[in-house]
Structures are given as structure tokens and as C-alpha cells.
């Protein structure tokens, strides 16, 4: 267990014009599961690699348990990392893969044996200890990679998109196991992913990054409900938040040819109106707008309906119940849950309300 703090941590690669990681501030508490989430190229993996000691730090400070570790080599930071590619040593058996790190740290061979068997038992690898990685399935390799981290009993676990090479069914299974593992070990874990479902389900907190900067840090539901800007609103959720340009006119917010009864309070005249697909109801009495159905996507448990509002360029996506009787081309009344809606400043893209 350990806490990890990043103070204005930056990384600039020699050939790049913009920094890959730009003054990141982040505190990961004892035993916390922190997810770094963002689109590819947002600097999340580079941040993780700096914490691991695999990438040098250009500026800022990195501390583990209050100790500055900027210049401490990876091997002395007492961290373990699980890679997307698993990075199993192809010439070693599963046993040796698990024992490799322990051997270096001068554990007695009986202790190594005990630890490896323990971890193999928990991960269901006992029957595979004599195999080489090429004779394992993707899921088994993933377990070995995980076991190699656990067996060391490190201060901090780092995960770099560990589930992205697995097929969908296995991924859901491993997600559950990782959550259980975190509860059992109570260890500090930092987990990089671009998959928001992983982030939402696994993270105690999520740190959303974009363009090398931290955009928002918070609990999964907090960042989902209260995005700080249009990036977070548009990135989280599937489908994401509908973002529509609007303009205040007296006591109405005019969006295209539709007026919403929203009072203007200390906000600019022009705003971006954001509403989640599940906060729009098809039909209803106080219909705020009418939309023409463009497409209906039944997903089984729910139905995603794509609408065009008159006078609005952007399509509006609505998450409806399993049974939506909307036909393409039909015009349908829509009701917005205005208490859950957000307004963003079109200049700064930050949330105003």
C-alpha cells in the first residue's frame, strides 16, 4: 500500500513540439483504484510509464509515499506493471515467468516456490506452471501477466490497458476478477484505459485526460453527472451527451426552431446545451420539441433512437426503453429532463450550469 502523488508532472519528447504530458497534478490515495481515462494519444500511458520509471520525467515531481522518486530507477520503486501485450518472457515457463522478479530480489528458493504456488492457485494457473507462453491462450497469458505482478507484493500496481487484447466475453470476466483482486489485496492501483466502461465499473476515481492535461478527476458517477466541460460530456457515456448550440431569448433557450423553458441566470447569451441520451423521453405531455426519427437501433435491453430537430445541425440521440414504437421518418414529441441538463460556454467549452 502506498500513496502516489504527481506534482505538475510533465514529459516532452525531444522531437515533439507539444508536451506529451503537461503539468499533471494527481493524488492517488492508499489502496485506491485510480483510472486514467482518455482517447489515444492523450498522455495517459506516458504518465503511467513515468510513474513506473520507464520514461524520464521532464519537469515536475513524482512521489511515492512522500518520497521523491524522480531519479529512482524502475527496479527500486517497488511497483509492478501489467502490459497490454502481457510481455511474458517467451523462453521461460509460467513458473519462471512468475519467479523471475523474486529471484532478482534474493528470496530463498522455498519462499519463491511458496509464493508462486499461492498465486498460481488463486489465478487458476497451477496446472500450467510447466508450460511456455506460446502454449497458453490469451486469457491464460493475461493471468500469468497479472500473477507476475501479484507475486511480488509491490507497493503500487500499474496497468496499461491490460484487457484490450482479450475478446469481449473474457474482458468482462477479467474485469470482475480485477475488481475482486483489488478488494482482496487492498493495494494501490493505477489503471490506464481508453474504455469508459472499464473506467466506470472499476475505478474508485477516474482521471480524465486530454491533450496531455488532466481535464477532470472524480468518482465515476460524479464525472458522469457533472462533466466540467464539453470534452468530458462528449467522451463519457455511450452514446455520449448531446451537445447542441443554443441562444437565450427572454425566458427561453432557443435551439434551432425549438424553445426550452430555461431561465437565463448569469450566463452568456450563446451557450451549448448538453443533455444525456437517457434524460430525453420520447413523447410526454410537456413536449419541448419535435424530432424526426432518422434511425432506430434496438439493442435488446434498450433502444437508441436518432432524431433530427428542426433547425439543428447535430443529430440528437435518445436512449429509449426496449419497446419504442418509433418508425423512421415519423415526427415525435420529445421531453427533456431539464434538471439533468448542462449549459456550457461556447468560448471556453467549460460548464456554466
Amino acid at each position, binding site marked *: 500500500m502506498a500513496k502516489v502523488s504527481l506534482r505538475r508532472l510533465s514529459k516532452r519528447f525531444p522531437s515533439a513540439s507539444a508536451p506529451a504530458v503537461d503539468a499533471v497534478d494527481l493524488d492517488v490515495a492508499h489502496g485506491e483504484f485510480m483510472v486514467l481515462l482518455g482517447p489515444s494519444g492523450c498522455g495517459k500511458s506516458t504518465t503511467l*510509464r513515468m510513474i513506473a520509471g*520507464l520514461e524520464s520525467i521532464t519537469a515536475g515531481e513524482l512521489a511515492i509515499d512522500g518520497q521523491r522518486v524522480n531519479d529512482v530507477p524502475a*527496479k527500486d520503486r517497488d511497483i509492478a506493471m501489467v*502490459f*497490454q501485450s502481457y510481455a511474458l*518472457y*517467451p*523462453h521461460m515457463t509460467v513458473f519462471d515467468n512468475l519467479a523471475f522478479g523474486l529471484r532478482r530480489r534474493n528470496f530463498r528458493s522455498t519462499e519463491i516456490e511458496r509464493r508462486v504456488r499461492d498465486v498460481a492457485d488463486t489465478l487458476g494457473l497451477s496446472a500450467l506452471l510447466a508450460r511456455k507462453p506460446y502454449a497458453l491462450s490469451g486469457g491464460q497469458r493475461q493471468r500469468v501477466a497479472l500473477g507476475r505482478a501479484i507475486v511480488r507484493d509491490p507497493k503500487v500496481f500499474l496497468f496499461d490497458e491490460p484487457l484490450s487484447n482479450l475478446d469481449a466475453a473474457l474482458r468482462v470476466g477479467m474485469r470482475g476478477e480485477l475488481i475482486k483482486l483489488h478488494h482482496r489485496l487492498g493495494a494501490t492501483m493505477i489503471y490506464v484505459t481508453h474504455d469508459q466502461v472499464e473506467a466506470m465499473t472499476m475505478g474508485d476515481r477516474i482521471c480524465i485526460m486530454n491533450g496531455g492535461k488532466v481535464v477532470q478527476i472524480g468518482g465515476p458517477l460524479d464525472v458522469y453527472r457533472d462533466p466540467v466541460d464539453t470534452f468530458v460530456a462528449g467522451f463519457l457515456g455511450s452514446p455520449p451527451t448531446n451537445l447542441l448550440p443554443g441562444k437565450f431569448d427572454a425566458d427561453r433557450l432557443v435551439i434551432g426552431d425549438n424553445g426550452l423553458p430555461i431561465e437565463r441566470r448569469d450566463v452568456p447569451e450563446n451557450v451549448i446545451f448538453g443533455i444525456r441520451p437517457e434524460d430525453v423521453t420520447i413523447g410526454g405531455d410537456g413536449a419541448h420539441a419535435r424530432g424526426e426519427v432518422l434511425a432506430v437501433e434496438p439493442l435488446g435491453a434498450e433502444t437508441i433512437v436518432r432524431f433530427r430537430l428542426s433547425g439543428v445541425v447535430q443529430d440528437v440521440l435518445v436512449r429509449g426503453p426496449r419497446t419504442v414504437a418509433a418508425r423512421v421518418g415519423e415526427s415525435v414529441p420529445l421531453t427533456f429532463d431539464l434538471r439533468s441538463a448542462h449549459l456550457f460556454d461556447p468560448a471556453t467549452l467549460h460548464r456554466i450550469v
Partner: protein
Amino acid sequence: MGRLLRSRPFEPATARSFPTQMLKRVALFAIVALYTAFAAGPFVWVATMSVRTTSEISLDHYAWPAKWHWEKFAQAWFNSNYNVYFENSLLVVASAVAVLTVVGSMAAHCFARYRFPANRVLYFVIFSTIIFPPQITIIALFQILVQYGLYDSLVGLALVYVAVQLPLTVYVLESFFARIPGDLFDAARIDGYSEWLIFWKVSLPIALPAIATAVILNTILLWNEFLYAVVLITDESRRTLPLGIQRFMGDQLEDVGMIATGLMIAIVPVVLIYMFFSEKLIQGMTAGAVK
């Protein structure tokens, strides 16, 4: 190809296709037979000569041995100094190949793994020395060895062999080392290993097929090397096998029978090393063997 031929009879052959199929097979067989004769013929010829005496050979160059003179091998080994030549060759080639393999794979590891200024420039400089034919450098080499007191010594010859073969060795190994995924090195770093240990415990074992390829190439090339040896070695007791064999080519008389026996002795290690490493060699040449 054996499988191809064997599988034919089980296929239903129509009356029309049978003669053309047959013809194709005969043609193919003829080509293969011709190539085999071309490649193996001289070898068999030398092999028969190795158990015939020179006088027998001069009577009929191509005759099958009437009496098998196996004693010629013992004679060559003990009386004609082949044991000394063999030992010298073994010493020079084994030490040169050992140094080449270790230094070459270390260099390849660095070129493939580390970002440092002038990485590509250095790599190109080393590799570009391949284009110089040995005749250009040999006089300079001769003078350097004389100045360092290494002329006419096995150590000097071994060092020259290392220098001559290093660029190609680095080239062969670098392309393989570069294909080892970088995550493996990161994982080993986090597992607590230093760069030095990572080379020995991760890079080297994974690159074994490529290293085997380099070992075979270098061994065969250096085992047969003549030009550098003939310029840099003069003393009888320090001759390598190719020089020893050449000793039987006099101005007036060539002891052809003894030369053939010497050649057969010289071939043994090459055949052995092929047998030992061939599986790895094939892996090395065909492999993206890492995954």
C-alpha cells in the same frame, strides 16, 4: 517435396492427365537429380580421392577406389602435421566466433534497443565497412599487426577475423533484436533487472535462433578463410587448415591424394556444426520467431 510425390498415387488420376502428370514428375526429378549431381559430385570425387594414393589418382583421375587406403587419414593427421593445423584452426575460429557472438550481440542489442545520439550513424559506419574487399585493407592490416607484435600469431589472426566479420554479424543480429517487443525489456526492468542482466537473461535467450545463424555463418566462413591467413601467418607451427592443405601444392609436384584427405578432415567440423545447429538455423532464417 517427398510428401508431394508420395501423395500423388492417392489422387484420382484421369486417363488424360496421367501422362502429363507423369511427364512433369520425371522432368522435376531430372532437374533435382542434375542439381544433386552438380552439388554433390565434386564432393564424392574428393571423398574417393581421399582414400586413394596420388599415384593411383594420376593413373585414372575418376576411378572408384580399388583399395581403400584408410591409413591415409592417420598418416595425414600424424605425419603431415594435419593435427597441428586442425588445432590451430580450431583455436582461431572458436575464439574468433566466441568473441564475435558476444560482442556482436551486445552491439546489436544496443543498436536495436537504445536511443542515443548517432545511433544510426554509427550503425551505418560499421555496416558500410562490408563494401571494402579484403585486398584493400590487407596491407594496412599487415602493418598494424607487425607494429603491435601480433604478426604471425594466432591471436593476431583471430583479432583480424573478429574485425572482418563483426559488421555482418551485427547486421544479422540487429534486425532480429529489433523485433523483440520492447515491453519485455520494460517488464524485466520493473522485475528488478539491470540493463546488463537484461541482455544476458532476456535478449540473448530470445535471440538464440539468430545467434545460431550467426555462429554457423561465421564458423564456416572463417574455417575456410585463406587470404588473411596466408598473408598474416608464416610459421609452419601456426598454419591453419587451409594453409596446411596448400602446403601440399608444390611447384613441381602436387600431392593430390593428401590434399583430398586433408579436405575431408577439414570438412568434419563444418558438417558437425550444421548437424548441431541446423534446426536453429532454419528457425533463425524463417523466424519472426518472437511471438
